[in-house]
């Protein structure tokens, strides 16, 4: 299976890149403010969270704006990937009913699209860090492994959602509800560690890879602290397992998808 995966990925990587670019391009082509929305959206959400939670509820954190932008950027990526992947087979029916392509390639395309948007929010985060005068430590390099594990995890879950989304027609309703719930316990606009101290808070962070990634990202970028490496390793193994399982399931069933939609 690994051999086939590598061969397919090689074969379709050029297509994925091209298709991701094409999707980004067609997104901007349909609105006047164009690409400015990719910047405005995360900035606006950051300010809303800042006003509501930071100012109204006094949930202040150090470097609050940068703190929220980092949360927003990772969360948006995860959120979009989940919502895209449940419907991705239906959305691409015109393609998959006419040619064969490994179905997870459609997810790779979305990884490209949403990853690009995440990269833009990262630039905003860096700008915020510079303006707020966040001291840079060598810990920032740890952002790379954290990000890799986070993307692997997202991709693994996406593969599973892609598969079940084909057969369970209203799965997207459930995914929306679950995502909303996960959003509030992920600490996008507050620090779980400080608001929910003790073992409960630790659990919330370490058992939820999204919360862990956001938390770890803030530690290394803003506070110059090492994330919990053991947990990172465990998440890496779990994420890799999810990816392998997801790709295995897709390979096994993908040729039946067209018949079901």
């Amino acid at each position: 299976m690994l051999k086939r995966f590598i061969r397919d990925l090689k074969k379709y990587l050029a297509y994925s890149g091209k298709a991701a670019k094409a999707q980004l391009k067609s997104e901007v082509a349909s609105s006047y403010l164009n690409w400015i929305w990719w910047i405005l959206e995360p900035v606006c959400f950051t300010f809303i969270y800042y006003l509501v939670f930071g100012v109204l509820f006094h949930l202040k954190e150090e470097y609050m704006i940068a703190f929220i932008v980092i949360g927003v950027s990772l969360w948006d990526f995860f959120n979009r990937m989940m919502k895209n992947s449940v419907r991705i087979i239906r959305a691409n029916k015109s393609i998959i009913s006419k040619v064969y392509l490994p179905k997870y390639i459609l997810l790779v395309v979305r990884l490209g699209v949403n990853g690009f948007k995440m990269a833009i929010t990262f630039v905003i985060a860096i700008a915020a860090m510079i303006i707020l005068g966040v001291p840079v430590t060598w810990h920032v390099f740890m952002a790379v492994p954290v990000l890799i594990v986070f993307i692997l995890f997202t991709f693994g879950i996406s593969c599973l959602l892609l598969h079940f989304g084909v057969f369970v027609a209203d799965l997207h309703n459930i995914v929306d509800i679950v995502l909303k719930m996960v959003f509030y316990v992920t600490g996008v606009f507050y620090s779980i560690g400080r608001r929910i101290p003790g073992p409960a808070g630790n659990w919330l962070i370490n058992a939820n890879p999204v919360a862990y990634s956001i938390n770890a990202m803030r530690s290394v970028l803003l506070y110059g602290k090492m994330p919990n490496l053991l947990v990172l390793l465990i998440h890496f193994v779990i994420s890799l397992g999810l990816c392998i399982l997801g790709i295995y399931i897709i390979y096994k069933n993908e040729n039946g998808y067209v018949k079901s939609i």
Partner: protein
Amino acid sequence: MGEIALEVKDLYITYNCMKNYSIKKSLLRLKKVEKNRIEAVKGVSFSLEKGKILGIVGKNGSGKSTMLKSIAGIFAPDSGTVDLHGNTISLMSIGVGFSNELTGRENIALSGMLLGFSAEQIKDKTEEIIRFSELGKFIDMPVRTYSSGMHSKLAFSITAILETDIMLIDEVLSVGDAKFKKKSLNKMKELISDTNRTVVIVSHSMDTLKKLCDTILWINDGEMMMYGSIEDVLPKYEEFMS
């Protein structure tokens, strides 16, 4: 006997009529939903030599298109095998998901890659596709600005110029205005009659079949009725249908 290019053995394809499962539905209706299976193709086998042209006939809904899709690798057969002997294959179809906001040129690249061609191969063929499609300056405009005729002209040109070893054709296509119809029909004939290319055509037009095909496969309700030369099969089929 020449080299075999395509071998289909004991192909079975079934559809599940209960299309998919919905959590809402299963909550509202706790009793088990009856599964309604339809057997679209039942045990079809044939082999085709390289360079030969096979016509598939049968009434509507007898599983012809389903079988083509399965040979092209879009559908999984429930049992049986399709062996392409290493040949590349494509199902000629109109418009492999054009992206409306992109220009015709960009869509050529995307569709070509989807059909499994490399970026260089497409680059070499792009000019030919554009010339054949007669779109002129429209090729650098977004596809959403195209008329439906231009849309199908471009789609046809892409599939016709980017050739594969085995071509599966669901009805001989002719698109566009009268002039382009003639041109596309000629192009199809040229593609089909290339001696290196193995072709499978599904058609209802007896004229087309008589003109183009070497052998005929007749399927009825998913079952193989006859497989043989035109002279043997077509008269019996016509008799059956009348």
